[in-house]
């Protein structure tokens, strides 16, 4: 990168199954207020010294928000009036990516990123069905869950991944979440509990899956090196990032591999000059809506070889006591709304690197990986390498 970009503030709401007492804008503002207070920053047009937020990026998909041109519906909560404002229709990790690009371009200095989704006001299966091709796949009633079940079957068959190995991911995440005050569904469960829980779409069971409905928001402020040092004494630097698309049709991909994640990770590693991710990364916050995905994504991220995700999980490396803890926050499996989830991973990684993660803190964390994806079975991925 031609210059260094820092994340200087992060905020998130508690994730809940139904924030029926709050309007969409209020949910977003709960997160925005935190980053404004942390930095003492306000908006560019209200300051004279040029030291304010000069860009707002929202992440919102019209279907999930339920309105056309969704972000302006909450624009007065964003403080968008008179501001430069753009909206990314993807998982919010891509909005964070866009923010870094904006700062690198030299056109903006300080960017506020906001992601908010109230799944309680939507029907996820109906909306997710709109992701698929209109002629052949939509009439089958596919949604992310059923498509992911296909992916899980293919992955487990090809590489001999066991249901127990998948269940271990669910257990670790739900138990980790007990240390995270923002988590929606921390649970004290065992592998047996997961394997006995109700079947949703074989092989995915209720406890293999994220909670079905999740509401919440998160916000971040990113800025240039020069300004970051004046705003905070704990900036977190974006050392590398990469994203990549895969083809759309499930049948055109080998669902047991995740080529776009491999490429996205390579781009991020090469930018951050990371040659051995397993050794050089201290913790990872990975987006996974179903437990098998983490095993697959750890392969894509190069933590282990292809097909070795299950065995790698058994080694305990990704436990809190291991050398590369994954999802100390409990991750999406403990409850994060779609669209917000990827940015929530960045928020958690930053919290860790600042040493502010409380009971879920990974001691001595210097370099972290955050990951988000968009589309069924992970069609496009976005990877960040962050460091203190």
């Amino acid at each position: 990168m031609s210059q260094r970009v820092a994340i200087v503030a992060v905020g998130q709401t508690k994730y809940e199954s139904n924030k029926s007492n709050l309007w969409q804008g209020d949910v977003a503002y709960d997160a925005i207020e935190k980053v404004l207070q942390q930095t003492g920053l306000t908006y560019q047009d209200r300051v004279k010294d040029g030291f304010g937020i000069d860009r707002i990026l929202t992440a919102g998909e019209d279907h999930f928000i339920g309105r056309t041109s969704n972000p302006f519906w909450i624009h007065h909560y964003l403080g968008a009036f008179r501001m430069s404002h753009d909206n990314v229709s993807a998982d919010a990790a891509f909005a964070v990516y866009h923010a870094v690009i904006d700062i690198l371009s030299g056109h903006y200095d300080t960017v506020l990123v906001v992601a908010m989704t109230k799944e309680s006001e939507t029907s996820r299966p109906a909306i997710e069905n709109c992701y698929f091709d209109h002629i052949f796949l939509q009439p089958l009633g596919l949604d992310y869950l059923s498509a992911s079940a296909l992916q899980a079957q293919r992955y487990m068959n090809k590489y001999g991944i066991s249901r127990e190995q998948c269940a271990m991911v669910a257990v670790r995440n739900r138990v980790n979440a007990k240390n995270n005050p923002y988590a929606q569904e921390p649970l004290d469960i065992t592998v047996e509990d997961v394997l006995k829980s109700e079947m949703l779409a074989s092989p995915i069971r209720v406890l293999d899956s994220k909670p079905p409905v999740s509401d919440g928001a998160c916000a971040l402020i990113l800025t240039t090196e020069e300004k970051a040092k004046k705003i905070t004494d704990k900036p977190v630097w974006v050392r590398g990032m990469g994203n990549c698309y895969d083809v759309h049709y499930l049948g055109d991909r080998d669902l047991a591999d995740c080529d776009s994640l491999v490429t996205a990770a390579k781009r991020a590693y090469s930018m951050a000059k990371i040659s051995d991710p397993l050794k050089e990364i201290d913790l990872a916050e990975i987006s996974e809506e179903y437990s098998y995905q983490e095993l697959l994504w750890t392969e894509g991220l190069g933590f282990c070889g292809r097909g070795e995700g299950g065995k790698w999980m058994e080694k305990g490396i990704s436990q809190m006591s291991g050398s590369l803890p994954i999802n100390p926050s409990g991750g999406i499996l403990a409850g994060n709304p779609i669209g917000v989830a990827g940015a929530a991973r960045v928020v958690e990684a930053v919290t860790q690197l600042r040493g502010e993660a409380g009971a879920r803190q990974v001691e001595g964390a210097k370099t972290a990986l955050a990951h988000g994806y968009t589309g069924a079975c992970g069609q496009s991925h976005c990877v960040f390498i962050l460091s203190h």
Partner: protein
Amino acid sequence: MAERVAVIGVGQTPGKRSRKDVSEIELVNEAVRAALEDAELTIKDIDVVIEGNMEFFEGTLYTDQWLVEGLGSCGKSGLKVNSAGDTGATIFSTGVSHAASGLFKTVLIVGFEKQDEGAYGGVGMRSEDSFFDIAGGSGRAIGSMWGTAISVLNRKSATEELIAKVRVKEAECGLRNPYSHLKLKITENDVLNSNIVIWPLRFLHICPTSVSSCAVIVAPEKEAKRLTRKPVWVKDYYCIHSGLQPRCGEPWLNVGAAYPTGPQFRWGVEQAAIALYKRNGITHPRKQIDYIESYSPSTWHEVDYYEALKLCEPGEAWKLIEEEATWPHGDIPFDLSGGVVSTNAIGATGLHRVAEAVIQIRGEGGERQVPRDVNLVFTFAQGADQFCTAAFLSKNL
């Protein structure tokens, strides 16, 4: 900007009311191929693909994901942007910032809308306040156009007869543009007698519902100079959000008429123009700018923008019209593509403005070409009364 950025290729599909012969994937692919051909590149030369449209209009979740095969974005970086009618211009600024970031060599930007597969009326209204406006049946764009029309009349900037004169100019320009959707042979009388939508807004003042796609390729300076002999430079761009709108209990039909600043549509454009003029040393826009390609969803908007862009004094748009200054032979030609009232494929419309600006600077406009040298073009788009992105494009660095 960290690096200077140039447009090195543009491609568009002809606007139509309906394209039953192609899927959305095939539609964007037509524009992508045209842009690649124009830039003399292949898809292998592209690093990043930025896509934008109004996902709600066709009911496809994450269109960038679905269109990967048509966009050629498999294995490439990229993301999707949606900012209402401004989408086409926003993806342009997003693409330019990717090119300026120093991380990429070539960026393909693609906007589209296939409105024969959606229903704007119902879906567009979904942008309104759920409690008051939708229940009250306030139609999104129509209300905004009405507010602009009323404000133009209130300021005595133009009469209905002069608006009809401008509409005929727009139609004549549309006839000369092979990519234009509407090919109308109309007279001022036809305009004056067309059906009233909400007085003074008439049917012929309004943009159509179009199907089209547009693609633009941008590259940082070094790559642009290596790849093309005819780069068009992105001199500067500016984004501003002008919204006062959906606030509970504030039915937005009032916005146009009740606010002393006039319609919000105009306010954002005016602010963007003021900022860009200041940054680029424009003191006499009518003299210094060679061509303007605008986002005018109704004829009233075009006339309103004459004043917002300081081409004349406030309340004196009528003088420009009487002098025919914004006609092809005038001193500040405006929307020679036929403008948005001739083609409006929403997610592509903002990008069509950029493509037309590039075509004019290169002198490749054929029958719609400005009949003199074009060095500096101002172009902008607007979305949902709130998003506005404006840019200066120039022949020389």
